[in-house]
């Protein structure tokens, strides 16, 4: 099996696992990890897409992944901050 198909396949599985974890877990931190796993899934797919046999890798999906990562970091940071504000100084 080609590497990129494996990547894509793994990407789909990661994405679905992410949704599963997001929907069925209660803790914010798990939900955020789940969202990031979903993101990784999509990025896997994009990386797989960039691969074309014999040619250099397609730079566009790579750039999309980089942009996507920054966006995911931003969202995660904001959500964590929400969690902290909600928790106040109480327990986690």
């Amino acid at each position: 099996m080609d590497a990129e198909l494996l990547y894509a396949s793994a990407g789909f599985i990661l994405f679905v696992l992410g949704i599963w974890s997001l929907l069925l877990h209660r803790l914010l931190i798990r939900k955020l990890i789940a969202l990031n796993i979903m993101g990784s899934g999509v990025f896997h797919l994009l990386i797989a897409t960039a691969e074309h046999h014999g040619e250099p890798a397609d730079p566009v999906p790579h750039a999309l992944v980089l942009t996507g990562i920054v966006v995911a970091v931003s969202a995660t940071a904001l959500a964590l901050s929400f969690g902290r504000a909600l928790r106040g100084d109480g327990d986690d």
Partner: protein
Amino acid sequence: MTDSLVLALVVPLAGALLVTALPAHAARIGLFSVMLNTLNIALLTLGVWQHDELQLALGDWAPPLGIGFVADGLSAAMLAMTALVSLAISVYAGDYFRDPARARHFWPLWLLLLTSLNGLFLAADLFNLYVNLELLGLSAAALGALGGQRTALEANLRYLLVGLLGSMTYLLGVALIYSGFSTLDFAQLAAQLARGDAAASGLLGATALGLMVMGLALKAALFPLHFWLPPAHGSAPAPVSAALSALVVKAAFYLILRLWLEVFAPLTTQGAANLLGLLGAGAVLWGSWQALRAERLKLLAAYSTVAQLGYLFLFFPILQGLPAGETRSNLFAAVTLMALAHGFAKSGLFLAAGFVQQQAGHDRIAELGTTLQQLPATTLTLALAGTALIGLPPSGSFVAKWLLLGGAMANGQWWWVLVLLAGTLLAVAYVFRLMTRAFGLEPTPRHFFTQARAEGPALLLAAMATGVLGVATAPLWHLLGTSGGLG
């Protein structure tokens, strides 16, 4: 002329940067940027009016390598509505966030929100839209939590997470599209799909469309994915609620409309459109019913947003079933008109509700009688907005509903008529449950306006929905290029 496309992004963004750097002058710079944005959007709309469509390849890189911006009639209409609503909200917010400590948080986020909205209505590139969607989701959630109460934080955290789930789902669709079509550009994608080279591409495209629509439907709070909306919109500060309900969910709806009817049109089926319509019907009934039962004014307004979005989705199955022609283009204009009218009405309603809440110290409907009777201008605002929500003349939603009914009948899809009937009567009930309290034995207020800067913008917004949009619809039809015999 195409400069205005870029400026639509740069003006609010520059404003956001400036108010970030100079928080002491946030209110002034912020209001100025929004005014400048309105002016720019006016120019843009004028450009679309004259040329039907404005296009731009950013950095002079033509798609598929670069990002394209396209402003057609639909974009221009949404942009113009956004510009006017945001101007009114900004004037109101100057009064609402008088505390400089809150103002300095509000303005930069608000201008970033405006940036993302303008970007969403202009970008013709699936991935650029994703970035805009995230910008929108983050700024909206942060704005919604500005009130600072626990309920607001919880509701907006959930909103943020739901938004992220939605955008991730959307992004997976985008990735699939790129893997299959090697382009992210609307026009190129539409052309490839129209050629319909291989069955496999169609399957891939349909799956991607499904993912994207699902993600966006989550963001547009389509029933039953609406659960996050009422708490988030009900707990945000009034100017933010206005923007969230009038503009933010509308942006997600706009994208669905654009993708469904334009880019992916060759792949959509009547069955799928029926599903959207069915969910819309559910939203109309459920949202209206919940609005009827809501005990707080802002919650009522939020549930009514769920219902009104449902109306917008009712257009899909009917549009799908109609052949190209006058009825269909009329109906397309009608859905736009409905979205605009709701945008104006709901923002006016939320701003008025915010003022009522400030004056009364609460927004429990059962105890609002005194306050409503003391505030004639605000009560009139609520009444005008309510008229548009019900869809009575002279509101834009009445015209839209008339055409929707006509479309359903022309199509033989009778069942939607019943949904509309039930939704209308429920809306009458929930609007007048509030308006009834405006009549009582309180002493007569001496003046129409109590605080013109807070009440004026809301009244003007509501009057746009009920009044202006109810009679002056011809320009919209012209803008959308479906003028037929309008000349």
